[in-house]
């Protein structure tokens, strides 16, 4: 447009009708942009991206609080939900009843997911105390050197990950969840997984 504005011959008082056409061209470009932006799905705040999505889950080998060995790669065949937890974090505490409800929901169906809490930066005793007081009988995995959290790239607690029966990471939720949200999400994945 600038080019148009300056290349007018000095001696010509005649008017070329260029402005409407240039405006129309720009309007078309902006219209396309507008449509793209209007259709851009608001990226869901509840599902966070990770380079691990749709890739095999990293190795996670440890022991549970009651002394049993834990190896994520041996959980293939079932849906696994990992919840990274810290007993001092308010959102984790707020989320806990939802996890209890979620565990109950999954226990009541045939292909229910296995729920594991992974301790993140917290003394084992504090977590054990929390579970003793507030319920929850699913296994609690120790992660003393933070290896599991590091392997998954956990940014902040609470963070919840879903791993499919072939050991592939399908979802990362870096915020608090509700029981219904998680169960619905799993149902969707099961249908896709077939």
């Amino acid at each position, binding site marked *: *447009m*600038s080019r148009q*504005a*300056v*290349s*007018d*011959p*000095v001696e*010509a*008082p005649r*008017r*070329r*009708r*260029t*402005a*409407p056409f*240039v*405006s*129309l061209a*720009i*309007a078309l470009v*902006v219209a396309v*942009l*507008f*449509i*793209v*932006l*209007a*259709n*851009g*799905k*608001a*990226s869901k*705040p509840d599902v966070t*991206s990770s380079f691990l999505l749709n890739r095999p889950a990293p190795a996670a080998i440890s022991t549970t609080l009651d002394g049993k060995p834990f190896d994520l790669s041996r959980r293939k065949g079932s849906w696994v939900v990992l919840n990274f937890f*810290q007993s*001092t*974090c*308010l*959102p*984790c*505490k*707020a989320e806990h009843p939802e996890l209890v409800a979620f565990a109950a929901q999954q226990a009541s169906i045939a292909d229910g997911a296995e729920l594991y809490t992974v301790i993140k930066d917290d003394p084992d005793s504090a977590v054990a105390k929390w579970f003793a007081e507030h319920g929850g009988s699913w296994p609690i995995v120790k992660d003393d050197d*933070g290896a599991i959290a*590091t392997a998954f790239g956990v940014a*902040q*607690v*609470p963070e919840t990950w879903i791993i499919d029966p072939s050991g592939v990471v399908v979802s990362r939720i870096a915020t608090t969840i509700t029981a219904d949200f998680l169960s619905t999400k799993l149902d969707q994945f099961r249908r896709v997984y077939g």
Partner: protein
Amino acid sequence: MFASTSLNGVIGHAALILGLAACVFGALGLGIATVTNDRRLLRSIPNYSWMALVGALVAVAVMERALITRDFSLAYIQQVGSRDTPVLFNTTALWSALEGSILMWLLLLAIYTAIIMRRNRRRLDDPLVAWALVVMFVVTAFFFLLSFGPIDAFKAGPTPDFNRCCLGPNPLLQNHILVLFHPPILYLGFVGFTVPFAFAIAALITGRVGEGWLLATRRWALYAWGFLTVGIVLGGWWSYEVLGWGGVWGWDPVENASFLPWLTATAYLHSVLVQERRGMLRVWNISLLVATFSLTILGTFITRSGVLQSVHAFSNGTIGPYLLGFFGVIVAVSLGLIAWRGDRLRSPGAIDSPVSREGAFLANNVIFTVFAFVVLLGTVFPLIVEALQDRQIAVGPPFFDRLGMPIGITLLFLMAIAPVLPWRKAGTELLRDRLFWPAWCGAGALAISVLVGADGLAPLVAFFLGGFAAGSALRQLTLATRRQGWRGLVGRANGGMVVHLGVIMIAVALAASNSYTRVAEFTLQPGVPVSYGGHTFELQRLEQFTDARSTGVKALITIDGGKAYAPAITTFTNFGTKVPTPSVRNGPLNDLYLTLEPSVRFDGTEAPVKIFIKPLIVWLWIGGSLMAVGTVLAGFPGRRRRVPTDPVSAPIELEPVSV
């Protein structure tokens, strides 16, 4: 508690309604009065502006009061307030989420409208002024509507459940004093562009696209640009001092959103000189202002709708369609007006030679526009791909760095050449003469950088051109001060040269820090010094600290046996978020930048740290300050120079402007 509750909400709602009504009546009244030439109605219009200002002031004051008194009955206070937030961060929590930041935008807009009204209250019978104020009223009304309706800033919250709500602002927004300055200054810039935009639209409506509206708004555009510049630089500083990743700019969508209007505004500040001097590029200048303003709205949309992933995004999806719709209306109306008026308003002047001041300004405009286009494309590209192919991609720093580097180098080259070019036409003789010393400055800069061991083509080219451009700017300033004494430092041309010096400092600092930063990770143990980059680092001890909202650990590390620096990790208990705080030893040549890694253990006897050695960073902040000083100098004398005979302000009228 409940009485005060409803009181804040009720007063807030009432204030917003008052402001909305005032703006709607103001816009309608002023429009009707102008069309029908109704003097009596015209005289009543300023009152609507004062009322809108009162509405916005009261709304912000009430929200601030609710924050300070911890009135958790309001949904917004539940979202960003907490009992433990310190006073400073509790105050700044006003703009730590969507509702409050729109309120702040609103207040600034109402203030700007009132100032324009106050200064022009006796000139309302001038259609140009009247239509400009109509536009200001309409924009202000939109923001009143936004904060009253769709986002409902004063919505009553549910009964607060203190286990879930009232956690306080995002930890990153309660960690550094800069939160007090960066957002408001940035907003002053964003909102400031409404004024020149309003006058540009008024010029199109009235058909008075001559230079009158330029005189009315050039200082507004300049100061808005200055605020935006300072806001962006402060954002870089914040990122560097708080976020702890060691960088200043990450090409995040929201950073781009502030950079886009900056680019088009910078183009405007240059091309407007061509219009003032030669009467050319009239429609183009209007288009640049329209682009700048609509990009601020688009930027707000990108930030606030959650449509793009970003560290700054507030995940609130309800407001997006309104902002996008407003953006569409602005663009449609502006383009319609340009299509309608454009041809009649164009000046028939032509550029005599590409090697001239106006030719250089034109090149500058083309490059800035291309730059803006590249940044816009990169920012929305993920959405385009998602729309076409239903897959998600990310466009990251490599794309912007690769395309931005040649553009930056071209701009440096223009900065070296353009200031010495005369208007109309330049001969080679004259160029050789005028570029002699600047070119030697460039050669000197190149020689020095090679001597201190710089390598790599791109940074060396940048250093050479930086020296060259600095030489040109200094030459202009020297000549000007020799002629006019201290007045040689003020005025647009001379102040502009000071701004150029600031830009050059930033360009050189960016080239150096992007090319020569070194980083290494160490696990420090007390009493075991580590050598890196010619310095020794020794861990003294790890210290734990606790306050109401956080616990943390800091590592006291001495550098070369001197003062202890204390990078820290703070865990905000309400969020479970770990926020690293770097510790920086600034130096004129190198910054030593220490961060503590999140894997540090509270009980540990060792500290995992990252040590960055970053060259010339301090010159980014010096350059930014110089740009601010230059902006003030550029806007300084004004009145005395605006005599009608001033050859710079008086356009060369090549034909009468048709109305």
